[in-house]
Structures are given as C-alpha cells and as structure tokens.
C-alpha cells in the first residue's frame, strides 16, 4: 500500500489542508476534526485504496485504516497537511468544543462514570458470585465467615460510591482531587443518618420542619414561607451519585476562581478551606436535597420504563440510536444510581445487552451474506467485538452504513428489551454487556435466552432483508481498470526486472550491497539494457542520473533496483529514465534504459542489485534461484 498516496487522497477528499482543524490517530483510525464537514465526501473517502470505512462520531471524522498501517498513513498525512501532530485528547477537545451544550453535558457524565468502571466491575462481579453461591442451598454458604467477609468487600464500593464519584469528577472538572475526596466522604459521614434509609422527599420536607429527620438550623429558626433558612437535614447521600457530581463542579469553580485571586504565598491557607467551606454549605443546603430528589425522579422514571415490557421495547429500539448520537454515556450515570440505591440492581443493563447483541447479530449476518472480502473482513470481527460489548465497529463500520442491518438490529433490540423486562433480568454492576454480562447477571438461563432472542432476531431479519448493493464497487473497479491494465501477479512476489544472470547478494563485489546494509534480496547481471517493473506498483523514486529506481508494490514491498555499482558517478551518462516519480506502473512497464557495453567500457561493474529496502517489515525474503532468468519470471518471494 502506498501510504503517501493514501494520505494525500484523504487530504484532497476532506477538502484540503485549509479545511483541517486537527488530526490524531488511534490503533485503527485516523481521527480528524474538520472545519466544514460538507466539504468532505464520505463516499469518495471510502473508495480510497487503504481506507476500510469512514464515519462521523463525536464531532470527529474517523477514517478506519487498520492496525499497523494507520500510523504510517498518519505520518504521511501530517507531513502533507503541515499540521502538528495532535494527541487524541486534543482532537477530542477540539471536537467537543464544536458540540452543543447538552451534548457536552452528556459527555461529561460519561467522562465521570466511565473511569470508575474498574471499581464497579470488580465489586459487581464479586457481588454476583457471592449471591450466586448464597443461592445454592446445599452449599450452606449463607452466613459463613467467608460469605460475610465477601459481602462486606463487595458492598464497599457501592456503600461509599459518592467518594469514588467525587474523585473522578474532581479530575474531570479540575478540582483538587483530595478536596473532592473530602467532600465525597462528608456526604457519607457516619454521624449523618444513612441515606439508604431516608427518602429524598423526606429530606426536602425536613427543611420545612415537617418530617422526623433531625436538622441543623444554622441560622436559628428564621422561616420564609415555611422554609427554615439554612436548614440542613442530618442525613447522608449514600445511594446518590448526581449531587456529588454537581457539588464537585461547584467546588472546582470556586477553587479555580480563588486560585486566580489569592496571592500565591497565602494560597494554601486560604483556598482549600474557603472552597471546601463554601461548597459544603451549598451542597448540604441546596445541591444535595434538590439533586437527590431529581435523581430519584429520573431513576424511577427509567426503572418504570425499563421494567415494564412496553417501555423496554421502546428503550431497546431507541438504544442504538442513542449510541450513534453518543448519548449512551449518560446511562452509566443512571446505572450507577440504580446500584447505589439500597438493595439496588441494575435493570438497565439487560436492555443495553439486547441492543448491543442485536448489533452483533446484524453485523454477523452481513459478514456471512456479503460477497465482498473487504466487507467480510470488517463485519465478522465487528460482530465478535459487539458480542463482547463494544458495538462501535459494528454500528459505524457495518450496520449504519447499509442502514437495513441497523433497523433489523433495532427490532432485535426491541424484542430483546421486552423479554428482559418480562423476565425481570437484573445485574450487579454496569459497563459489561454481551457475553461477559453472564458474570454479573442474577438469572443465567434467562440471560442466555435474551442473547439468543435479540441476536437471533437481528441476525435472521438482516439475512432475509439485506442485500448487498454492487454498483458502488463496480464503479471503482472500472475506474481502476481504465487507469492501468494490470498484469496477473502473485502477492508478495518480486519478478525479474530484466534478462540476465541471478546471483546472491553476498556475491556482489561491493561491501555495502553485499552486507545487506541497504536491504535484502539478490542481484542480476543484466544481459539487456532495460529495467522493467517487477510488479504492479508505484514509482517512489528515480534518481536524476537514471542509474537507480525505487518502487512500491501494491502490496507494500519497497524495492530498489540499482543498475551497476558506483554508477552514480556516471552522472546520467548511458542511462535514460522512462518513468517519473509517483507514476503507476504495472508489471513489465519499462522503467530505465541503459547501455551495458558503454557502462562496462567506462570501468563500472554492471551488476544490478534488486533489493527490498523495507526489509524490516518482512521476516523472510526467500533466496532466489541463481542462474539464468528472463524478465517477468519469478525472482523471489517475501513474507511477513
């Protein structure tokens, strides 16, 4: 593959350098932020050789290129575009700045709740295992020392969830994480009533002095329409995750403002105490009661929807759409809220599983039905990944591109979601769906059935209703054939560039070539004065002197054909160039002409090394058969 060509084609199709804001890459994709998306032609981008897929997500234009090649294309790309390399985070930020407020808010929820996943998954898995063992009566596991110990262990993260959330939120909002931890700990302080035992309505009402929860009335008993000014309900916020996120946001704002205003030498004495004091007051007086109540409404609403089969059908169907829009990060907030509640289970996860597994089903069906090798090579791994819970490759790489599989997946998700609610499935953690979900689910057989239903429906429907469209592919094919009529060649093979005698590289009478310092391969003592293309590829380099030519084969071999030893000194005499840099050539195209007798007469050795210069990319370069050869016959093969 010609990385530079691929990169320059991409640059052209996104509307040139002027339209590029920043560029980064991950393991498989080029992630670009471009100023005007309308200038980029997705269809043309997809047709570029080397591009496996294109989609827009999170404000980025993501171009799938593949592991091991994306970095090379990226290097060429930034070279061509003249932009500085940006880190993934830079691109994400540039992309985020382009998004509307509500989208950024949802992204923030994801940023807070995704990093705490290890704690949640570890505790959730442990909890799932302990519960499963506890249910087996013949084991008598319940009440044993191990049971109690493990029960304590697995409940810890949930009992003190606000603290974990506080630390994560402090990182996201830029507050001091230790102050954040203090605030989180304060909200679950043991001298407060346990929040699991207090209804959030009661908490609000306590400020009006109408419930039994004790309060601290900081400003005496001044009342404004029944509201006791500065009243703090003496209960903790176990079971709530949103109040702490808001509180940390406020903390960060206050802290940053103070850092700016307070002289540096007083900073340590003034800023921490002031920011924690003010934030705590605001949190316990207002943020805590108000947002815990709101959080409860949202959770109750979500639970009502998700545990009722009709609601679950709707959520299941819409779930993939929300993934496309990037809204699904917000679900982590809902799920952790559900788990944080007293005796809480995650009832959202089964519906999410239905949606994700349906994507796997659709993508698998495309992979099986498609005749196109490229589509197959994306669809099947994407299906596997989706069955393990990572759906982006399946959604963006396959299902959404052909639309019908996506719709089939929505139907599969809806049916599966309905079943999940009907069966009352629930999980002990979040962040895990698909096959790994077996570890956190409370009813294993029903979960297996759920996978079968959602995946099966999507798979079957896709198989029936989706048909591959051929016209696009044909168009590209015909374009290609117009450009060059390609000779039939085998992959990873170098053919002889001229008639002559093949010798081993070690036999070349020049230390640099013989030692393999320039690359590996063999040499030919030519019998005729013309070098022909040894494969289908591109001319990457021709010396002005015409004594050597560099080529890149379509499958990635970089080859140097150096006619004669030290012949650079002839300065072009006796040589004639027939091609120029960047030209596409097919096997057998004449590249250089030279006068063997004249070169010999000038005192030079005409031996012509034919070597692979990117030998690092190839493990094996086969020894050639020495002796007579004719232009166009196999010289040697390489393998990775």
């Amino acid at each position, binding site marked *: 593959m010609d990385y530079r060509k691929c990169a320059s084609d991409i640059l052209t199709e996104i509307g040139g350098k002027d339209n590029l804001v920043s560029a980064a890459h991950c393991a498989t994709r080029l992630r670009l932020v471009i100023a005007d998306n309308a200038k980029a032609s997705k269809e043309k981008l997809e047709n570029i050789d080397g591009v496996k897929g294109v989609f827009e997500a999170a404000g980025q234009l993501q171009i799938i290129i593949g592991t091991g090649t994306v970095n090379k294309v990226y290097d060429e790309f930034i070279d061509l575009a003249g932009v500085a390399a940006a880190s993934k985070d830079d691109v994400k930020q540039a992309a985020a700045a382009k998004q509307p407020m509500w989208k950024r808010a949802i992204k923030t929820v994801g940023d807070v709740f995704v990093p705490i996943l290890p704690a949640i998954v570890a505790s959730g898995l442990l909890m799932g295992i302990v519960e499963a063992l506890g249910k087996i009566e013949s084991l008598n596991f319940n009440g044993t020392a191990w049971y109690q110990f493990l029960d304590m262990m697995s409940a810890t993260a949930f009992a003190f969830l606000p603290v974990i959330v506080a630390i994560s939120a402090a990182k996201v909002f830029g507050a001091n994480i230790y102050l954040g931890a203090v605030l989180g700990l304060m909200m679950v302080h043991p001298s407060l009533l346990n929040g699991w035992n207090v209804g959030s309505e009661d908490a609000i009402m306590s400020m009006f002095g109408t419930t039994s929860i004790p309060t601290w009335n900081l400003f005496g008993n001044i009342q404004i329409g029944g509201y006791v000014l500065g009243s703090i309900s003496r209960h903790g916020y176990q079971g709530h995750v949103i109040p702490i996120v808001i509180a940390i946001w406020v903390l960060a704002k206050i802290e940053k403002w103070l850092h700016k205003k307070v002289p540096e030498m007083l900073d340590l004495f003034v800023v921490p105490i002031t920011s924690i004091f003010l934030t705590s007051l605001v949190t316990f007086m207002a943020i805590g009661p108000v947002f815990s109540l709101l959080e409860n409404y949202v959770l109750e609403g979500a639970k009502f929807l998700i545990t009722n089969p009709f609601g679950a059908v709707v959520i299941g169907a819409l779930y993939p759409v929300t993934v496309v829009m990037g809204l699904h990060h917000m679900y982590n907030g809902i799920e952790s809220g559900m788990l944080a509640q007293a005796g809480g289970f995650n009832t959202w996860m089964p519906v999410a599983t239905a949606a994700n597994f349906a994507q796997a089903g659709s993508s698998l069906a495309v992979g099986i039905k498609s005749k196109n090798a490229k589509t197959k090579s994306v669809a099947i791994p994407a299906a596997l990944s989706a069955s393990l819970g990572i759906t982006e490759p399946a959604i963006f790489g396959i299902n959404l591109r052909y639309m019908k599989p996506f719709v089939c997946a929505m139907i599969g998700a809806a049916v599966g979601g309905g079943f999940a609610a009907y069966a009352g499935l629930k999980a002990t953690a979040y962040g895990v769906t698909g096959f790994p979900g077996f570890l956190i689910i409370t009813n294993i057989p029903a979960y297996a059935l759920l996978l079968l239903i959602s995946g099966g429906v999507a798979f079957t429907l896709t198989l029936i209703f989706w048909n591959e469209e051929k016209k696009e592919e044909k168009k590209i094919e015909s374009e290609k054939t117009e450009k060059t009529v390609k000779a039939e060649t085998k992959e990873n093979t170098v053919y002889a560039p001229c008639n002559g005698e093949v010798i081993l590289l070690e036999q070349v009478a020049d230390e*640099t070539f013989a030692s393999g*310092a320039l690359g590996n391969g063999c040499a030919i003592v030519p019998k005729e004065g013309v070098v022909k293309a040894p494969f289908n590829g591109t001319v990457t*380099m021709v*010396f002005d002197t015409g004594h050597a030519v*560099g080529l890149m084969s379509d499958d990635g071999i*970089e080859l140097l054909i*150096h006619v004669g030893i030290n012949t650079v000194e002839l300065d072009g005499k006796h040589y004639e160039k027939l091609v120029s*840099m960047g030209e596409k050539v097919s096997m057998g195209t004449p590249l250089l002409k030279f006068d063997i007798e004249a070169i010999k007469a000038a005192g030079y050795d005409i031996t012509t090394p034919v070597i692979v210069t990117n030998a690092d990319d190839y493990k094996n370069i086969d020894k050639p058969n020495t002796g007579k050869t004719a232009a166009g016959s196999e010289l040697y093969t390489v393998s990775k």
Partner: protein
Amino acid sequence: MIKFDYVITDAVGIHARPAGALAKKVKEYQSKVVIGKGDKSAEAQKLMAVMSLGVKCGETVTVTIEGDDEEDAAPAIQAFFNENL
C-alpha cells in the same frame, strides 16, 4: 528536539550508499531523525524516502533529531554527515 543544517559536499549527493549508511546509523538510536530539504522531508530510517529527496551536492538539508536519546544521537549523526556527506 535538536536541529542542524548541513551543506552537502559529497559530489554525487545523497545516493543509495550514503542513504543506506545513514539509515543504519540512525537505527542505532531511538530518536526520530528527519531530513528536510526545502518543503520536503523524509525519515532518515526510510532509505527510499531519503533517496527520493534527491539531495545533490551543494544543497542544504535540515536534520531534526527528536527523542529520549537525542543528546547522544545528535553529535553522532552530525559527525556522520561531516565524514560521509
């Protein structure tokens, strides 16, 4: 990042042999070495890319060395240019 300019004195410019020797030298270090000529540039490790710059005698190249061992690599690479090119 360490940068230096070098005027090529070798009569035939950067052709296959010195490009190969340079690539070999550069591979001894972890730093990324980029050779620039005008608005074109090439990673010194990549033989073909370096040759395709078509650097001739009397032309100036800019060598950029960047990486953890750049302090060690830069003098060695500078010496290589002085001796070979």
